[in-house]
């Protein structure tokens, strides 16, 4: 793991942020599974919005929905879900910062998540420029398909990596 990355963990370890997160996780009854469920519900919204949109653009799902209309309709749900997941995730991140910032799978998760967000943001912003931007000519439609394919892969890997954070030793310390 790069040093700048692990040093974030060192910085957060022992801070008041960690104290607050640990207090919530340890004191509120059922808080860990509840907050994890909120996090997974956020992933469900990622699945129902951007993943479905990607599948639509690739011609695999919801054929009656128009790309531009669907983008406009589902994107707000996605951004709210991501904001919610940022908060729900940070309880665990701040609670045990070194566990995450020394975990290569967490590094993988971020290296999927950041491009996934940027790509989706780019797609959303371009579609705001003009109604039906991605469907206006075949060059743009093919670009949209390329973006959708990459985006689909990235979002799925974000969720997969998230689950594997707890199993890091399965990959890095094979039995």
């Amino acid at each position, binding site marked *: 793991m790069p040093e700048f990355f692990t040093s974030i963990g060192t910085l957060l370890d022992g801070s008041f942020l960690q104290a607050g997160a640990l207090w919530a996780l340890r004191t509120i009854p*059922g808080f*860990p*599974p*509840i907050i*994890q*469920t909120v996090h*997974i*519900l956020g*992933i*469900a*919204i*990622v*699945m*129902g*919005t951007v*993943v*479905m949109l990607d599948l639509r653009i690739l011609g695999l*799902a*919801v*054929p*009656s*929905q128009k790309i531009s*209309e669907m983008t406009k*309709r589902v994107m707000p*749900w996605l951004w709210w879900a991501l904001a919610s997941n940022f908060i729900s995730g940070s309880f665990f991140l701040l609670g045990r910062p070194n566990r995450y910032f020394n975990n290569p799978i967490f590094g993988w998760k971020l290296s999927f998540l950041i491009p996934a967000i940027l790509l989706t943001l780019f797609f959303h912003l371009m579609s705001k420029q003009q109604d039906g931007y991605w469907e206006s000519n075949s060059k743009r439609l093919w670009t949209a398909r390329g973006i959708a394919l990459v985006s689909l892969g990235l979002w*799925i890997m974000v*969720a*997969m990596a998230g*689950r*594997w954070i*707890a*199993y890091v030793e*399965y*990959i890095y310390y094979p*039995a």
Partner: protein
Amino acid sequence: MQILTAPFWIDIENWPISWEIGGTSWFPFLESIHVLTAALVVGSILMVDLRLLGLAAKRYSVTTLSKELVPWSIGAFVIATITGLGMFITRAASHVVNPAFQWKMALLLLAGINMMYFHFRVYNQVERWNSTASTPTQVKIIGGLSLFLWSGVMLAGRWVGHII
């Protein structure tokens, strides 16, 4: 319930395939597919439920949305069930007596009954409110209940790992 403590569940844990899954990367692999497909089940059902509640996708008819989304829910559910069974057999005896697991199964059953009720008792009158943004109260209750029950399935499912 005596059946929950029967030796049968231990026998399942001792199947060679249970040992194979439980002792290798198969377990986290199945678990991540389970989470992914469970999220897809809920994500696709959520879109239909929000439409039933009259909260989203109002421009689409209920039948169009159902026709295009429910097959995804069912497909994802099948994969989630297979991967779930794969994990279940590694700790069958502990799971059947785990209150979180019992809740999960009960909530799944209720979610299933809710869906069946909608499909067989309500859906045949769909033409009356198919294209209207606002739906009858009964339909709203079913949509809300579905959201509630599926979130409960997720919560109970996540809780299983905290008890085992």
